[in-house]
């Protein structure tokens, strides 16, 4: 086990290095000039070559690329995430301020996905290929199919025009005012949660069906237990394991999906910051946020693997 963990850790570091190198290279070959956003259009138009050289040097962008990359890694090692090009805000501040919003959206999405997905999945598994099963399956496929940002856009407009309501326009943290905070994260949380719920429903349905056909369930049934009891008491706990782990995996998808959904809802989360930073060519912000997403992804995956070992005694890591 310890050996396995050590190996996973090495892999994780390799993955993260790879991510950092790829995003670094991609950002350096992106066409477009961060100085347009920094100086504004008018300032940029009047900038001389000398000015450019000086400003680029100030921003640390004129050093040779390997040096820039090495500096970045050194800064991360020192716990320094660097600053936005523009207003001198640090990336750490950005993450501390906006990260919680995105994290809440992810957690809310997770809760919604279980509340909606699991009962639907169980219902389907009770009577496979029945009418309710068909409806449930169609609905779940539908929710996977609807683009979240489109749904978000329609919801925002509907709320505004029918109720004259819009979610709070600046970040309110849960510890400042939980009710205001909930209004911010609710929309994206539910939209993303429904899509993930669809996966949960499908997953739990098929896992239940798989378990139900196994011997111990047949035995339970043979003992004359009621069908409901068989499913709830015997089949479900065994079927839940993969469902739990898929949630971990889906978390990564929620984080990725929140990029567009946050934009649609106008929620100032990390995903939206990332999109803005890419468009503004705020290279330092982009590279650090992408790395943060990668770290979360890698960590979650290690946890998923470990949870397997912990929940299922049949698994041994060699």
């Amino acid at each position, binding site marked *: 086990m310890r050996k396995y963990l050590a190996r996973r850790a090495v892999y994780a570091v390799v993955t993260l290095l790879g991510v950092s190198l790829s995003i670094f290279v991609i950002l350096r070959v992106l066409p477009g000039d961060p100085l347009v956003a920094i100086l504004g259009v008018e300032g940029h138009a009047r900038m001389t070559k000398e000015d450019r050289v000086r400003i680029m040097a100030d921003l640390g962008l004129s050093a040779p690329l390997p040096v820039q990359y090495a500096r970045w890694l050194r800064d991360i090692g020192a716990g320094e995430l660097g600053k936005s090009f523009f207003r001198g805000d640090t990336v750490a501040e950005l993450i501390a301020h906006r990260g919680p919003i995105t994290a809440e959206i992810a957690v809310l999405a997770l809760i919604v996905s279980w509340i909606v997905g699991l009962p639907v999945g169980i219902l389907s598994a009770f009577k496979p290929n029945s009418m309710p099963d068909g409806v449930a399956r169609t609905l779940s496929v539908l929710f996977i199919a609807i*683009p979240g940002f489109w749904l978000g856009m329609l919801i925002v407009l509907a709320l505004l025009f029918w109720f004259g309501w819009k979610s709070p326009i600046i970040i309110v943290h849960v510890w400042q005012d939980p009710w205001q905070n909930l209004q911010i994260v609710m929309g994206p949380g539910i939209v993303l949660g429904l899509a993930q719920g669809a996966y949960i429903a499908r997953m739990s349905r098929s896992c239940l069906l*798989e378990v139900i056909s196994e011997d111990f369930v047949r035995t339970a049934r043979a003992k004359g237990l009621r069908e409901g009891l068989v499913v709830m008491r015997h089949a479900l706990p065994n079927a839940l394991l993969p469902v739990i782990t898929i949630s971990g*995996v889906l978390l990564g998808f929620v984080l990725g999906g929140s*990029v567009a959904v946050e934009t649609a809802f106008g929620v100032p989360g990390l995903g939206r910051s990332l999109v803005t930073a*890419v468009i503004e060519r705020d290279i330092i912000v982009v590279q650090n946020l992408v790395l943060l*997403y990668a770290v979360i992804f890698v960590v979650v*995956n290690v946890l998923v*693997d470990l949870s397997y070992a912990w929940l299922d005694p*049949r698994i041994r*890591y060699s």
Partner: protein
Amino acid sequence: MAVRAAEPPVTAVPDAGPRGSVLGELVRFSRRNTLAAIGGLVGVLTIVVALAAPLLAPYDPLKADFRHMNKPPNAQHVLGTDQVGRDTLSRVIYGARTSLFVAFSAVILGTTVGSLWGVACGYLRGRFDLVSQRIMEILQAFPDLILAMAISMAIGTGLQAVIFAIAITRIPFGGRVIRSVALSIREMPYVEAGRASGGSALRIMVFHVLPQCIAPYLVLATTHLGVAIVIEAALGFLGVGVPPPTPTWGNMLADSITALVPPWWLAFFPGLAITLTVLAFNLLGDGIRDTLDPRLSPAFLRMMAGGRRR
């Protein structure tokens, strides 16, 4: 790597059973999978619409008509017109062309590259596999939308850039799923026999392993078609998709959001087209998967979602 003992091996052995005509097969398939059949029908219809766009579209999708700008659905323009008087129906129809072309090309490209790579990984194992796995992990560790966005911007926005960008995000999925298939096939007696009789690695991969991967490849591709369509739309929504004036469902949606209240017909119909098409392909994908191997489902789903297990 984690090995889960209790999991059934992922195999892709098609249903054995009496074979009838192609039509008979189809009828049998639809009877058992009504939803999938409907999905398939809608999917085929969409493809037909896309191919026959010049015949079906009532107007030129690029032709601005300044006398009929921003008109809601009416007798002449069934789905209305956009801000410069282009016919929405024609644009949705031509949009199917671009959107499906992007999705199909990206998925075929990404999944094929991924699958071939996966076969090589699964069969060769060893250092090659180890390095490849790390590369795929790196690709997967990016949020796919951001990866697609960055790549398409880096190589210059355009149709090819978008296809290429989406394809890259699909590679690791193909790679991981097919790799695990290849891993299990590798241990099959007939493959071992092939190896024992001195067949080269390439030969065995091409003639023994590859054919067994076709079924999961098809399932993968069908399922990812929907994902690709949505990514194309999201790229358009974020402003880095296929550039105008070429209509795609994604950039139609993005272009509708130019005012507080987009004219509803501009915001609604492209979104509906995306939803219906993705729905159709997903249903079809489910059906194909169930038919090819019902046991594949849970493990398969898990891998589709994360591609991490096994």
